[in-house]
């Protein structure tokens, strides 16, 4: 039986363009905040789990090794996990197994990304994620392939663009209350629909920004957690799943891999009826339609139903099932691996009632965070409980 694992402290840097900070410095800043929040020092940390996405962003080969001392792993065991855009939430599982396995009592978990080093734009790094032989010659980029996915999702369920735009309006609005947010703003559905078209149906305000930043948290065994805090938040379920590389062979309207990852995490957490058992969610929202796509994959609603719930206000911060109360990637910013860690931190702060102006106005017991990445291919899910 796995041991229980508690989150006992969290911290994050402001997400923005941070040209003056090295990746190490950002990792250090977030790690220090998480340790301070937990009331621990680095000497109390037995292991380090690091998550950071493509080396091509920073232009550093073996980026994990480079970041390791900034992330506190000097003379300590450290590993780096990497599942593309799913990396951030995956670090929740990565840190979890260090403790659940009985091998360590404490683990510092750090997610870092510095995208601004890539010139002229980090999209350039994404040109190198495609298959060398088959795809790269076609010059595809991320916006292009996600436009295909968004189109398929809209066509399959007959979804109107304005119902998708509402996600962007909601999340950027929520981010106004987040002190670390890069792109909190009050916008309307028309603003989204009138923004520059990049690859139809994707428009500028449908997309999260590129960002630099880091986020971190401290995990502990039950024994340590009960010693240092009266209010630990438990990681009760973790799940992940990767579909085939050949994305052109899949029907993109539904993320089956997210469903499988969610089922793995829900089984572990004893969740049988997700919409009823889960109080709020932080699905990954690098594009507005992805939040909807992921709500369906997470079994929080039926296929095609997420846009309706959003239109009806169910997913607003004061709704029945708030999603991305933090402001999500669309509002807080999207430094890939750090974004997912930010979502786990948000679950922690919400469940402890420490989310300040972002606090969801109801009793919270269970939250779920999820991220997604690779070639529309990986789902990572973490369930946390008070």
């Amino acid at each position, binding site marked *: *039986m*796995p041991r229980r694992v508690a989150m006992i402290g969290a911290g994050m840097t402001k997400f923005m363009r941070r040209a003056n900070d*090295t990746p190490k410095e950002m990792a250090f800043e977030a790690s220090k905040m998480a340790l301070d929040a937990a009331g621990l020092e680095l000497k109390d940390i037995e292991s380090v789990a690091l998550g950071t*996405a*493509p*080396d*091509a962003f*920073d*232009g*550093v*080969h*073996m*980026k*994990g*090794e*480079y970041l*390791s*001392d900034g992330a506190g*792993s*000097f*003379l*300590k*065991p*450290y*590993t*780096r*996990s*990497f*599942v*593309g855009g799913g990396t951030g939430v*995956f670090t929740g599982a990565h840190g*979890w*197994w*260090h403790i*659940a*396995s*009985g*091998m360590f009592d404490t683990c510092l978990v750090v997610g870092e990304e510095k995208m601004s080093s890539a010139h002229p734009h980090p999209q350039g*790094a*994404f040109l*190198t*994620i495609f*298959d*060398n032989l088959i795809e790269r010659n076609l010059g595809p980029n991320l916006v292009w392939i996600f436009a295909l996915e968004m189109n398929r999702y809209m066509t399959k369920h007959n979804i109107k663009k304005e119902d998708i735009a509402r996600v962007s309006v909601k999340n950027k609005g929520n981010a106004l209350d987040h002190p670390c947010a890069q792109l909190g703003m009050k916008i309307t559905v028309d603003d989204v629909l009138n923004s520059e078209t990049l690859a139809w149906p994707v428009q500028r305000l449908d997309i999260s920004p590129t960002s630099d930043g880091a986020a971190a948290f401290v995990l502990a065994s039950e024994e340590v957690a009960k010693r240092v805090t009266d209010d630990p938040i438990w990681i009760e379920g973790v799940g*992940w*799943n*990767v*579909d*085939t*590389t*050949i994305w052109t062979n899949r029907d993109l309207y539904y993320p089956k*891999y997210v469903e*499988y*990852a969610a089922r*793995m995490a829900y089984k572990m957490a004893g969740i049988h009826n997700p919409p009823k058992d889960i109080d709020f969610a932080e699905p990954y929202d690098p594009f507005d339609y992805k939040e909807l796509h992921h709500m369906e994959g997470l079994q929080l609603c039926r296929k095609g139903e997420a846009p309706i719930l959003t239109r009806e206000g169910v997913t607003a911060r004061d709704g029945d099932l708030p999603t991305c109360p933090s402001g999500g990637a669309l509002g807080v910013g999207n430094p890939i691996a750090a974004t997912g860690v930010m979502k786990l931190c948000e679950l922690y702060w919400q469940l402890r009632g420490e989310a300040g102006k972002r606090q969801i106005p109801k009793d919270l017991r269970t939250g779920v965070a999820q991220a997604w*990445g*690779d*070639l529309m*291919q*990986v789902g990572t899910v973490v369930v946390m409980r008070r």
Partner: protein
Amino acid sequence: MEKVAIIGVGFTGARPDSPELSYKELMYEAAVKAYEDSNVDPRKEIGSFIGASEDFWDGVSIFDEYLPDQIGGALRPVCSICNEGLHALATGVMHIRAGIADIVAVEAHSKVSDVVNPEGIMHFALDPILDRTLDYNAHVMAGLEMNRYLHEACVTKEECAEVVVKNRANALLNPYAPYGAKLCIDDVLDSTPTYEPLSELDTSNLVDGACVIVLASEKVARNKRAPVWINGVGWCNDTPNVGLRDWGYPRYVRLAAEQAYADAGITNPYDEIDIAEVDDSYSYKELQHLEALRLVDTGEAAGFLCEGAFDINGELPVNASGGSLGMGNLLDTNGLVKTFEAVEQLRGMAGQRQVKEAESALVQSWRGVPTTSGAVMILGNEPSGGD
């Protein structure tokens, strides 16, 4: 803690070049061999797939994308660990102990023959502000480190050359290893100087290959043929900062070993371990690592080596496989290849290079310059140690 066993291994063998195969085909071959060896159906029985990889070596960003299909992992829990193969094995051990899965597959590969300029890639591993701007080749760090080690431990270049002679002779007995050769010390000393005091033959050559190891929980392993038990794992880093690290002594190996020994309940490594497969990507590294592993005292490895203690028929055979000097350097696959050798030896299937009465083995890896990242694993024919 729950005991974990290796129930199957698959290795393509190492080759300096493999123009007719893609990395996917190499991975597939290793996976099929490992699944056959363990009698496991990957689509039904394996609960977690872990790959050790680095984007720049693979020439693609987010290598995780290209991991699942050829190892049977599509629509299953799959993840990349950007560390050495032994770190990925340690991750697999944690997955089983945490109850994630009863059977885990761990994969690593090298298709370095596709890399036009490997030293250019290594250059990108240097700190972009402090080191890269000095524009030195990463191998320089091995030269500096060797110098420091020779000085601190009172070891000579001739003694390091003995490591090369031993390992490349061992490789002659290993059908998987391409660099078998009968050399003498002068061959090594007279080879082209590279990064003083290193010569060409002190450095392992980069090669292609893939390796897959299948792990299982005790419950599953008990019903499998010839399980090899992972009795201890440990891993550790020193600092990436070249100004602050210990240049003569690999503290990360020492700390990783202490973790693994505690896990395995080992107090006297030299007596309790029958064979060792340690990192020898440069000749001096074998000696330096044996000392940091506490298999011998600091400064004593060269003496044991010259007395023949580390030969295949010696008291503690080291790198009977031929090591990286004889096998070639498979980047982050080295740890799995060394594990493969240890499993072959413990099962008594190592052919001409078989060590007599090998019951326990130590495997150690290092990620190479410019890192200070090491891992250690203790294997045995019987489960031991720990609670």
